[in-house]
């Protein structure tokens, strides 16, 4: 696992503490070139692992990364999907069936669309939810074709929904699909880490990869800091910490010192919008984790997804 991963929430106008800050970020990163400038700064600071949501801008970002293989030769991506708002808005506008059809067929060639139709059945409505989920995952993953993907995360809005519903077979089906179709680790973003870890282990997912907010302020940590710390101490899983700065509520030095002292944290995911800030956080993490150099993982081949995703020929070139 990469110990330091660069997150992307800041590029999409997300700030959990302030709508004014979120607006400033949305204005600043309206142009993908501004985003790429910050990603380049992170890459040049030695952070070669990026977590990317499947926001509309991900297509352009990934296109740029694909077009410059030498510049990003050591790149490792951790996609996080789905970007839920685009689904919610489309379902509001069109109803669920037409929205699903749009997502599954948008931007595809006739042959690809035909393959999806064969696999999905003529009408989505007659299919089982697991089949629909697999088709949607494959549709989202097309953005990352040809890039070095290390793990695929289920966004917390979906994973926590499935957790609350007790839909264990769907969580397990997601994990199995990611392993079978892409040959990488499935990951789970969550705002309810202790319950999620227990649920995934109860599902039979061993040593699960779980990314959650972990910060001294206890922000976005349900049910509370105490339960998080106990889970980190007692459960066998791979923990990734995000929102370590609590959207700016905690001073960086204090924030990083807290998270790096906790047991079982494999990676820290952080977002920043300037080179100075990236260097500051990177320096603080290195001070606590001297071994936080980018990991030299073996070559991984991302397998083709099954029929319907014939263009996802992502053979990776890791170091």
């Amino acid at each position, binding site marked *: 696992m990469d110990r330091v991963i660069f997150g992307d929430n800041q590029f*999409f106008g997300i700030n959990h*503490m302030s709508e004014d800050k979120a607006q400033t970020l949305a204005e600043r990163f309206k142009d993908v070139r501004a985003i790429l400038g910050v990603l380049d700064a992170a890459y040049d600071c030695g952070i070669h692992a990026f977590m990317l949501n499947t926001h509309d801008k991900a297509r352009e970002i990934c296109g740029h990364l694909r077009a410059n293989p030498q510049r990003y030769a050591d790149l490792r991506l951790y996609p996080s999907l789905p970007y839920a*708002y685009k689904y919610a*808005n489309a379902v509001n506008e069109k109803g669920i069936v037409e929205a699903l059809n749009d997502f599954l067929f948008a931007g595809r060639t006739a042959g690809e669309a035909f393959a999806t139709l064969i696999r999905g059945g003529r009408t989505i409505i007659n299919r089982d*939810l697991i089949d629909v989920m697999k088709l949607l995952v494959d549709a989202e993953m097309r953005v990352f074709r040809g890039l070095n993907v290390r793990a695929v995360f289920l966004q917390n809005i979906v994973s926590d929904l499935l*957790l609350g*519903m007790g839909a264990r077979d769907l969580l397990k089906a997601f994990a199995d699909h990611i392993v079978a179709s892409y040959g990488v680790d499935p990951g789970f973003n969550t705002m309810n880490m202790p319950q999620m870890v227990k649920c995934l282990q109860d599902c039979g997912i061993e040593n699960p990869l779980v990314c959650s907010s972990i910060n001294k302020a*206890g922000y976005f940590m349900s*049910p509370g800091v105490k339960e998080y710390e106990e889970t980190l101490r007692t459960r066998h899983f791979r923990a990734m910490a995000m929102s370590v700065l609590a959207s700016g509520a905690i001073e960086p030095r204090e924030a990083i010192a807290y998270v790096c002292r906790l047991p079982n944290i494999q990676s820290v995911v952080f977002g920043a919008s300037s080179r100075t800030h990236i260097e500051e956080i990177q320096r603080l993490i290195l001070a606590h984790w001297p071994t936080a150099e980018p990991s030299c993982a073996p070559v991984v081949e991302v397998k083709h997804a099954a029929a319907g995703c014939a263009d996802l020929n992502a053979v990776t070139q890791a170091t």
Partner: protein
Amino acid sequence: MLRGGIIGFGRMGITHFAILNSRPDVEITAICDTHSFVRRNIARHLHVAAYSDHEKMLRDADLDFVVVATPTAMHKAAACCALERGLHAFVEKPLTLNPNDSHELLAMVGRSACVNQVGYVLRFSDVFMQVKRLLDARAIGDLVSYKMEMRGPTVLGDTRGSWRSQGDAGGGCLYDFASHAVDLVNYLVGVPERVVGAVLRPVYSRQVEDALCATFLYAGNLWGNLMVNWSDPSCRKPSYRFEALGRNGKIIADLHAYRAFFRGPPDIDGLTEGWNQRHITDFAAPIRFYLRGFEYTRQLDYFIDCIEGRASPGVSSFATAAETDTVIARIRASAAQEKRSERWIA
């Protein structure tokens, strides 16, 4: 163990199910939805009895409470059925499309001991609860005026495929979206005595409004402006901005933070003279399970606490929701009046 049922398994029904199901003292044993795709997957993946008819569900399943999350036009029939059986009821907002219907439901709960609640979730938002405390404590003195703005990217094209495009089903910006802002005004400031100058306008929709404005008038010269637009592509998600001016200061709030100006020390929450800023990270209380926002869990936990006698009902009851429906009806009446004036001028 409380046994619950859910009527309507769309976006809100699913959210409520997940939050309630995550409680150890609640079991959702029945779900009703009209779509066969939804029912088939409920039975297969959630292992809950799925019904197509809510009357049959309420008759056959032995329930303590029900959550009604259907399109608004069906709220009254489902809620009546539940109340007749003595079930506690949580109904999504708005309560009904007509204040008379809401008052009929209110009369029914008046004759029973059922806990009743409506999904005006902003009454459980950390920031707006803080703002309510400040206003109730008269921290900015007598109110002079306020504005409530709500905007979102909910409808950015023709919505003919959805019930949101049909006014008689409860679609349209006023019922489906602005009802939150109207209820928030009622919660924070109080129910206006009069509504004047209301304008309802389409942006993309053909049969319903996508944007509206109105002026609310109160006794004692207080007035407020409401501006709502659900066809604003510049937003990532629905957002609110409430700005209240009082004789001793001002409060500006959204879902994540508030800023407050005081002419003198307000003597509350450590706030001081001049400008203050508080973010949600300063005061958000921990929540046992998080989905979509702290307030979604808080409102349902409050509902369960009321049923089990751990909390006093009333924060977002059928009574307060009926007041909101009355204000919505006044907005419609004012808009109709404005339209007649426009025609007369033309």
